[in-house]
């Protein structure tokens, strides 16, 4: 007889979600639903009628961890719609900003991950707040990596949280030669730290993977399964680092392959909670007798690619562009660490190529005729696609397909076979960013190809 257990809210990730898990007598998940319960803010609807300059600054406010992704994807979707090519030096500044944001985001996620992990060779969970070594040095290294990321973002992007420098047609300002040197120095320092951090994290993650049992934070130990966090969905990524847009000679994302369905079609129906655990770490699980209704409660639409949910994020990028083939929750975590060095080396390459006296704004910025433009930015958590139609400088239509939105159904599938007590470890492997994911639903009753509606 299967039972239903609910973890609500989940912790140590961005935003507000819960897990509704159908488990067998051994506590192994038979079907898991991981869903957003973050209130919908409706960015896409309120953007309609606003100027193309304002809408991306609003969508930046979707998330304060990856505002760079939303700012750049938003702006580049508008540029894609109006057909505006930006100068090289503006592009380089955007690449630097992208690298800086990914660096800080991955480092931040380390802090969220570590409490699940053990000091290698011991049974002690890592508490990043501990003043004791070796954890203290790791925490300081993470802080410095984030400081480097945010400082570079501040210089190249005007502001690390909600960057002010990007604009339709390029950037508002180029940087001074002094600022260029400063970015280079910071990247050099960061490259050493990032490599140390990557090695440390991979050691810790592999140690976790090789353990027969584990617990969430300081909870009780349960036996893990062999294929912890495996799923059979595919991967989607458009670039190892930056982005692809409809203006590219060879675009890497295909609107016609994208469909979107309502949670109704994907999630479980109404459930009664029949299993509870007052000793679950941090807070108890939902008491038995309560009701959960994932179909109705989920606040995200379910986007699909080629008719199926698809994983996005660090592993998808490495799988597509570097033949990375490690599966499971730790496969995803390790892929994330492997992206560290590229953030710094790409930053250095871009800043090296930057001409600080070059123009950073296009000579001509068309006002748009309502054609569809899209930009797919490789946010820290995966492909962040913004689609827009701009006419006479105003947004006519705007849609956000955000990494965690893609990952919600994939991660739900990846929960199957795992002990429910470790479900949050799988969720965290996706580095979920739920306020990102919770945007506006495109209700698509007949499961039509939404792109057909766009192209019309």
């Amino acid at each position: 007889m299967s039972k239903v257990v609910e973890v609500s809210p989940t912790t140590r990730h961005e935003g507000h979600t819960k897990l509704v898990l159908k488990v067998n007598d051994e506590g192994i998940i038979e079907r898991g639903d991981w869903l957003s319960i973050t209130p919908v803010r409706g960015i896409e609807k309120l953007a309609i009628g606003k100027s193309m300059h304002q809408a991306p600054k609003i969508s930046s406010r979707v998330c304060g961890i990856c505002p760079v992704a939303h700012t750049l994807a938003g702006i580049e979707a508008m540029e894609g719609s109006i057909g505006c090519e930006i100068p090289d030096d503006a592009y380089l500044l955007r690449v630097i900003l992208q690298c800086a944001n990914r660096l800080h985001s991955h480092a931040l996620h380390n802090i969220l991950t570590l409490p699940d992990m053990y000091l290698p060779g011991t049974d002690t969970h890592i508490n990043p707040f501990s003043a004791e070594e070796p954890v203290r040095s790791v925490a300081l290294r993470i802080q410095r990596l984030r400081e480097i990321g945010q400082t570079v973002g501040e210089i190249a992007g005007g502001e690390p949280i909600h960057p002010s420098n990007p604009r339709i047609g390029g950037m508002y300002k180029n940087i001074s030669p002094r600022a260029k040197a400063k970015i280079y120095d910071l990247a050099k320092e960061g490259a050493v730290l990032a490599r140390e951090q990557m090695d440390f994290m991979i050691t810790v993650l592999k140690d976790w993977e090789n353990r027969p049992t584990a617990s969430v934070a300081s909870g009780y130990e349960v036996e893990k399964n062999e294929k912890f966090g495996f799923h059979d969905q595919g991967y989607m990524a458009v670039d190892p680092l930056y982005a692809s847009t409809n203006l590219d000679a060879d675009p890497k994302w295909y609107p016609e392959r994208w469909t979107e369905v309502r949670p109704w079609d994907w999630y479980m129906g109404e459930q009664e909670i029949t299993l509870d655990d007052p000793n679950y770490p941090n807070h108890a699980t939902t008491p038995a007798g309560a009701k959960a209704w994932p179909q109705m409660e989920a606040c995200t639409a379910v986007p699909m690619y080629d008719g199926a949910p698809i994983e996005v994020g660090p592993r998808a990028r490495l799988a597509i562009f570097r033949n990375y083939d490690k599966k499971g929750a730790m496969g995803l975590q390790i892929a994330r660490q492997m992206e560290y060095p590229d953030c710094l080396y790409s930053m250095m390459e871009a800043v090296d190529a930057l001409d600080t006296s070059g123009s950073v704004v296009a000579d001509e910025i068309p006002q748009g005729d309502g054609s569809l433009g899209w930009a797919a930015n490789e946010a820290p958590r995966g492909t962040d696609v913004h689609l827009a139609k701009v006419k006479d400088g105003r947004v006519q239509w705007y849609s956000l397909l955000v990494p965690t939105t893609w990952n919600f159904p994939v991660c739900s599938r990846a929960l199957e076979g795992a002990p429910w007590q470790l479900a949050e470890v799988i969720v965290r492997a996706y580095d979920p960013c739920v306020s990102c994911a919770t945007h506006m639903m495109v209700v698509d009753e007949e499961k039509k190809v939404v792109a057909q509606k766009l192209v019309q």
Partner: protein
Amino acid sequence: MVLGNYKTALSARSTDADILKCSQDGGVVTQLFAYALEEGIIDGAIVAGPGDEPFKPEPVVAMSKEELLAARGTRYTISPNMKLIKEATRSYGLDKVGIVGTPCQMQALRKAQLYPMGMRSVPDKIALAIGIFCMENFPYQGLETIVEDHCNVKMESAVKMDIGKGKFTVYTERGAVSQIPLKETHKYEQPGCHVCLDYVANLSDISTGSVGSPDGWSTVFVRTKKGDDIWSKAITAGCFETKDIASVKPGLDLVTKLATGKIDKNKKTLEERATFGVGKGLRNPYI
């Protein structure tokens, strides 16, 4: 405390002939920034650089002595220097920012340091704040009217403007001098200046102005620990000639008198705002 807190007051002028050539008074601001830039005390300074119209300043981040020299001289109109305070720490990549400004701009700076609303990274990057004495300011159109209509001088011909001894004076490049009583300029003053209670930039690290010292010299107040440190280094480096303020005419008595006059007059304006309407008043930012 009409002159604010200070460690020392003195009369000074730069020893650099290049700086003095076009400086308004003793070249104190330009010389201090030039010295601080050379010594790495600052790596750039926000100054009022040349704008696109004569005597219309445009705030710039000066990162070389040439840019500092281009900002010499008083422009009696608004230069929103604080608009660059955040940008200086962003695309300019500065770690140690210098800034010059009127008393109100020094207030804005200190407020940004203590209450940084949307001012991330700014508070700890301010290395040197130089304040200039200020009685009042004019909008650009007001200044144009004063110079072109009251003084009968084309803006393009003016090389220097000066307010002192109750007169507004314009000097032209052809050597003519045009002078009007300051009374004529009152109606062109920026209304916001009428609630200002600071004459000698009380919140700066070092403040300077013409009043109290002879022509070609500046009165200087060294106020903060930071200001004192930089000032004594600059003196040791031979940047300035100095005189004891007690030995110069008209000296601090006049400064005190003018400061008291400004503060008393504007305090009255502030008080009047409380009962401006019938049964209601206007806002007072100090309470």
